[in-house]
């Protein structure tokens, strides 16, 4: 931008102030969660809320980590989310490639439409029918029910994200490989994928996040502690006549932590992945 030095300083101030305000807006609940989790019960249920803690306590965290099945819930969430990410990526890569390269085939256009339509379905609608399907297949209370459900929900958008990226890869690269005698799958693996790393990471992150944060189906399909995932488990702290806010907040902080850390490390890829043709629809 071409402007005077004074204008530049003013601009910078405006930018920083705005960013800080927005960041506070974004962080406030998370900060409050953290502060509540570190307060002893007496300070939580008080008529005058405060950002300051008189007696910091790690009791809530200790209780959640050691006295409840929390670590088990984390393991379950991790297993389910990772598997969903890997499977949905594999499926979406193939489907995204097809939607990108074979746009003109009638079957592909129909699939495209179908995927878009599937985004319009209220999840609450599928609750009972999916429950009955899982029950008949004897998959309730197993990882499978969640993996199947989450993968299904995530496939359409993952496919579109990857398709958008594949669209930006010139077909000439593949033509060269095809003339060399490469089969389609080999072409995808050796040419397309290496170029798509940023997009793969962002799509993978998206799938992981969706699976990790999902609540409704995790709550309906799993009643067994040994398979319960973290987000439905948070509801356990809301008892019949009391809510253990300290425990609830501690669990919440711990539930958000892994995803935040993963995100911190991969945020560069995430944005790059979306830049290269991600969300053009």
């Amino acid at each position, binding site marked *: 931008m071409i402007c005077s030095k004074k204008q530049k300083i003013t601009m910078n101030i405006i930018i920083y102030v705005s960013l800080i305000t927005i960041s506070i807006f974004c962080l406030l609940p998370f900060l409050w969660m953290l502060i509540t989790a570190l307060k002893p*019960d*007496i300070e*939580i*249920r*008080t*008529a005058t809320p405060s950002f300051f803690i008189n007696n910091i306590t790690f009791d809530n965290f200790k*209780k*959640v980590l050691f*006295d*409840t*099945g929390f670590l088990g819930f984390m393991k379950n969430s991790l*297993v389910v989310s*990772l*598997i969903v990410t*890997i*499977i949905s990526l594999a499926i979406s890569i193939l489907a995204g490639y097809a939607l990108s390269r074979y746009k003109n085939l009638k079957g592909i256009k129909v699939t495209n439409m179908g995927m878009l339509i599937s985004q319009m379905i209220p999840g609450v609608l599928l*609750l*009972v029918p999916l*429950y*009955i399907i899982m*029950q*008949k297949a*004897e998959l*309730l*209370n*197993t*990882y*499978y029910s969640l*993996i199947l459900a989450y993968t299904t929900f995530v496939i359409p958008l993952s496919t579109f994200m990857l398709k958008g990226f594949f669209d930006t890869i010139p077909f000439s690269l593949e033509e060269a490989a095809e003339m060399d005698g490469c089969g389609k799958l080999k072409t995808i*693996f*050796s040419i397309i*994928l*290496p170029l798509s790393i940023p997009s793969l990471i962002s799509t993978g992150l998206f799938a992981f996040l969706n699976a990790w944060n999902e609540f409704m189906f995790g*709550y*309906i399909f799993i*009643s*067994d*502690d*040994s*398979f319960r995932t973290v987000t*439905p488990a948070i*509801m*356990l*702290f*809301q*008892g*019949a*006549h*009391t*809510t*253990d806010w300290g*425990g609830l907040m501690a669990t919440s902080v711990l539930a958000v932590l892994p995803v935040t850390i993963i995100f911190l490390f991969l945020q560069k890829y995430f944005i790059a992945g979306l830049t290269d043709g991600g969300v053009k629809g």
Partner: protein
Amino acid sequence: MIKKKFIVLMSVAIAACLTFSACSTGKNSSKSKENDTSKVTLDYWVCWSPGSDTEKNSKAMFAKYESEHPNVKIKYSLITYDMAHDKLVTAASAKNTPDMSWALPEWIGEFNNMGMLSDLTDYYNKSELKSAIYPNVMDTMTVKDKVIGLPYQLTIRALLVHKSLTDAAGINNIPATFEDMLKLGDIYKKTEKYPFGFCATSVRTPQELIGYLASNGLEIATEMKDGKYKNTWKDDPAQLAKAAEVFQYYKDLTKKGIVSPNTKAWGWEDEDTNFATGQYMMEVTGNWMSERETTNPKEMSDVAITAPPYKEIPATYMETNPTFIYTSTEHPKEAFDFAAFISGKEYQQAVFPVTSPRTDVVSDVKWSKDFMNIAKTGISFPPVTLGGITTAMTDSLGKTLQNNEEPSTVAAWLSDEINESLKQSGEYSEK
């Protein structure tokens, strides 16, 4: 190139490993029942708070039971009451319920109608429980002479009073009736604290409302000659007028500033927490409030316990929690024996010493003694499917307090809704 292939292969390998581990864990737990033919595993859904004393004591008792009955394994799953209800309903339609579970009395009529509950009458008649449980408690889980649950907990609602606050406000006699309560209109101006509070949303609202209606001589659904139920208010103008009086009471409490204006949207959490933090003086609630003595020791140090305010006859809501044994169970005898153990003296004294439905488990603490004194005026919900009815009851308060509708209109509306709901569940009496 080779590095990238390696990464891909590793990912696939990791996925495979995870899938297999998930596979084996999943298959193992579902096969364990069939492989171990000598051992009986009881699937038991419970609703305690994680890390609570109830959890610790219950787990200790489960271990004791298992050591005394080596062929039985107790497999408990933790779930909230709300979730449990929804899941039990969906599980029933897919024929996939656990062996037994904790339950709320509101579910008694509904689950019975769905045919989910085992008939425990014979077992019960032959057991020691017959002489140990309060008779009116057993009545709440007996439908047409069929015993369909064994009680594990009993809570009565009472009026809790912050004595230091009421003394400071000059309230010398704790209000006993609606009229007494309605005289406290100028307390807030004097002390900046509201004398009373109730809740108008969440599950506790119908429980409070039914108590007040009963105290004015009203039932929300009366059993008719054909064994089915009907709300009779619109058939009898006197009853309709009495129902309107109860809604008027709620309205007056708000208009006269006896309760906070926020009360119209309070749930049980707000009601209890605001009382525990000393924001208002008197609350109708249960003896779980004893827990609040640890979270708010200063404010809760002055609590006195007495009967809830009534209109014509003293009445209070009595909440009896039944252990349900589901018809899908493959081990009815073992399930019943375990349920009887849960209602037995040893377990009750260890886990529910203050809230026990047994006549021989009463403690000297005010949270037990003073509450039990009110038990004889206890009433509960009729044994019908309640989902639509409790929603309508909560909505009726919404209409009264949020929409400012006339109490007589609301009473008539509620009567219609209750009957409509009974028709939907096939329990409406045509008589």
